């Protein structure tokens, strides 16, 4: 019942320019139906609905009454545009003014027409309650070298308005036409990217991911999939932010769920990094092996600090481990926070060459190659050291 009422509630009522007494009698002269609806979802937060209707006009000034109920149209965003008439039926029409009756969700356009006939108008407005979100579903191959990535769009209709057919545009992917019912959520696949190269990374980062066992100085080792938005069908458009669920081919005709993460907005040529879970077959212990203080003068000191990493790869495949450290966190740990940025130099530890692209005045990133566990023996333990000199501390 509500639905039927609503279908008629957003209507254009034509009040032909007429003497006042006549006006009341011919109130419902015509109710032009929507010829076409486009829903523009390219704005991050806002849904813009555009509907085309064919409005019959008489020569002179016409009143076009637009009213709505139970829906969150922002009346201040309403734009009425009269689309050009076909050459064989030239008809010029212009909006003269808009009137807003009190206590009503309505407005009245005064439209002047050069002749009697019909014009195609496009009415655009921001509609609350219509939202969208993107999400991704990917299935990786057995070797975790490539994955098939599907980009899906979900449109949530809480706008209390039904659309028998509407063309949707989400800002990326193809336009598509679908019906959208009341309180309905519609999910469509916008794009599919096959055999996308994926890089699997392992990371230790005490600041961001913490310890698996603090008492044993054992760090968490998160596992990430890194996908570059480039190459093949990728890289033509940004990948909007959204939840990504990653599965893997289980080799038995099915898939197994590996994990999910919220992917950030990824422009073309940039990388999408998804944290899927912890890798328990790579064990890393981190200790502060040395902390020496030397006085330079007065209350000015220099600190020599060495961090030691004991790394074991229990996997039967080689791996790359990213070691991320915050120098400020190290400084704060060994001598407390002075409120100043640390001034530091890398010493002669085994970790000497940080990745310049990923490192800065505070954060350091080192890459360490881990060989696979031998088939016939225990995993070898690698020892790495990071030696830092903290200068001019007081």
């Amino acid at each position, binding site marked *: 019942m509500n639905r039927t009422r609503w279908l008629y509630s957003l209507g254009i009522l034509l*009040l*032909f*320019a*007429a*003497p*006042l007494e006549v*006006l009341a009698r011919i109130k419902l002269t015509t109710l032009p139906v929507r010829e076409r609806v*486009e829903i*523009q979802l*390219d*704005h*991050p937060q*806002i849904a*813009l609905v*555009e509907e085309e209707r064919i409005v019959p006009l008489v*020569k*002179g*000034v016409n*009143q076009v009454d637009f009213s709505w109920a139970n829906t969150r149209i922002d009346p*201040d*965003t309403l*734009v009425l545009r009269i*689309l050009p008439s076909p050459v064989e039926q030239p008809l*010029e029409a*212009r*909006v*003269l*003014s*808009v*009137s*807003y*009756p*009190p*206590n*009503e969700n309505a407005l*009245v356009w*005064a439209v*002047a*027409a*050069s002749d009697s006939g019909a014009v195609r108008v*496009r009415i*655009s407005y921001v509609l609350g309650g219509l939202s969208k979100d993107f999400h991704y579903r990917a299935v990786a191959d057995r070797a975790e070298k490539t994955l098939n990535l599907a980009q899906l769009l979900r449109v949530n209709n809480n706008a209390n308005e039904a659309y028998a057919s509407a063309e949707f*545009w989400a800002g990326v992917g193809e336009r598509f036409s679908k019906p959208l019912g009341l309180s309905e959520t519609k999910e469509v696949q916008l794009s599919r990217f096959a055999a996308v190269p994926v890089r699997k990374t392992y990371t230790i980062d005490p600041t961001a991911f913490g310890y698996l066992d603090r008492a044993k100085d054992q760090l968490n080792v998160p596992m990430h999939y890194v996908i570059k938005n480039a190459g093949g069908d990728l890289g033509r458009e*940004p990948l909007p932010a959204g939840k990504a669920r990653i599965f893997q081919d289980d080799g038995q005709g099915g898939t197994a769920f590996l994990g999910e993460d919220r992917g950030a*907005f990824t*422009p*073309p040529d*940039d990388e999408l990094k998804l944290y899927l879970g912890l890798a328990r077959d790579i064990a890393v212990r981190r200790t502060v092996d040395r902390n020496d203080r030397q*006085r330079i*003068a*007065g*209350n*000015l000191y220099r600190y020599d600090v060495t961090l030691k990493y004991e790394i074991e790869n229990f996997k039967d495949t080689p791996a790359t481990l990213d070691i991320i450290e915050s120098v400020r966190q190290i400084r704060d740990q060994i001598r407390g926070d002075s409120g*100043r940025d640390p*001034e530091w130099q890398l010493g002669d530890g085994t970790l000497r060459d940080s990745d310049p692209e990923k490192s*800065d*005045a505070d954060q350091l990133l080192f890459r360490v190659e881990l060989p696979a566990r031998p088939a016939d023996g225990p995993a070898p333990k690698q020892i790495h050291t990071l030696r830092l000199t903290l*200068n*001019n501390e*007081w």
Partner: protein
Amino acid sequence: MVNAMTSNKNLNRMAWLGCGLAMLLLPLALAASNLNLATVPERRTVQLTIYNSEDLTLVRESRVLSFKQGVNPLQFSWANTLIDPTSVELTFREPGAALQVLDTTFPHDRPQTLFWNVQSDADREATIEISYFTSGITWEADYLAIADPEEKTLRLESFVRVRNQSGEDYENAQVRLVVGTINLVEKIAELARLPVGRLDELKREEYRELRLKAGRQMMAPAPIMMAETAVAADMAAPKEIIKEGLSEYFIYTIEGTETVPNGWAKRLRSFEADEVPMTVEYRYRPREYGDPLVRLYLLRNDAASKLGGTPLPDGTIRVFRANGRDGLSYLTRQSLKYVPIGDKIELNLGPDPLVVFELVKRKVYRDNLWFQVRGGDLYHKLGESGLRLELDSRVAGWDEHTIYQQRIRNYGRQPIKAQIRREFPGDIVFRSRLNPSLHDFQTVQFEAEVPAGGKAELDYELIARTGYNQKQNRVELQAGEVSR
């Protein structure tokens, strides 16, 4: 007359309630009794001058009255409206000198009423003008901008919207709108009395419906001309709004007359301009636009930009971009501050997700360290020969070098221009090869162009003279390579 008026049917009566103003000419002998009433003259003309900076409208209306020789008492009342009684003024258009207001009385027992005693030198008919301030009628500007798909030009439409909540219906009024900020010592709405009881005679719903009906009737356009008579007539064009200067203000006069019933609002186009040239610029100015790098449309309110006919009053602007398929993309909504003729217009579209803007701190080091010896007035620099600094010497001053790289990655399909302003309090040396300028004593400005799909890496070094070393509070620009 009064009997006839009050015996009318409800609708007419309501219309009168809305009008509220009654003008009564009283026989001299009955000035205080109000028993025999001579006439209720109708308004001949009404002019509304509406100010947008205050809730203030100057109403000027004219009526025609017959006067007898001698003293003529007049009664003026304004029940259920928001008129400032102290502002009501009576003047005579013609014949001016023959008529004179002797005094004005506000009776204590008759709210929202006043009496004038008018001296006339003969029996005559005269056009009188009554002016007063009312609140409840407001106007505001709003704008619609639609950029073309390539973002080279935009279409700008300006509107004025008049709202009438004054309690009074103004029919066929000449409407003038004042752009400017005037000073008022008291609010008109406070000076006006609150409406009193007569509206309660009808149930609220009934009243609303009647008003709405009456309103819709008033808002209906003029009857259509028959085809024969309309042959020569062109299609109705939107009303012209004439713009003129008025002291420090601007006054817009809407062509012809307008009817704005109480409770209604009406929006008219003030001007439109097609293919207004614009540029796109990216700016980082935290004080003005907050933390992100924002994208702006920049245009100018001048003739070269097909604008400049009028200042743009404060108002809300909604910005769209045409998508090339008859559709629009919603970009933003923002308030536009008054734009004088010739001034620039900035439309802030917010951050662009395709442009990544990062500031990377690459290195920090300190030098030129000074020590205060034993808390006294003696200071020594570290490294001065032959000097031994004991534990009770403390660091008192130093130069802190921080090397930054401002990175801008443009993932979009168009090259961009970015302008960056950063504020550095303290005694600062800004060293770079960026050809910067000082926006003010502590704000540095520099620009960059980033090709489509490219990136810019802008290096600079800040040297902050801190503690004992601080001698100034300003930024000094220095051309040079940054430390590595």
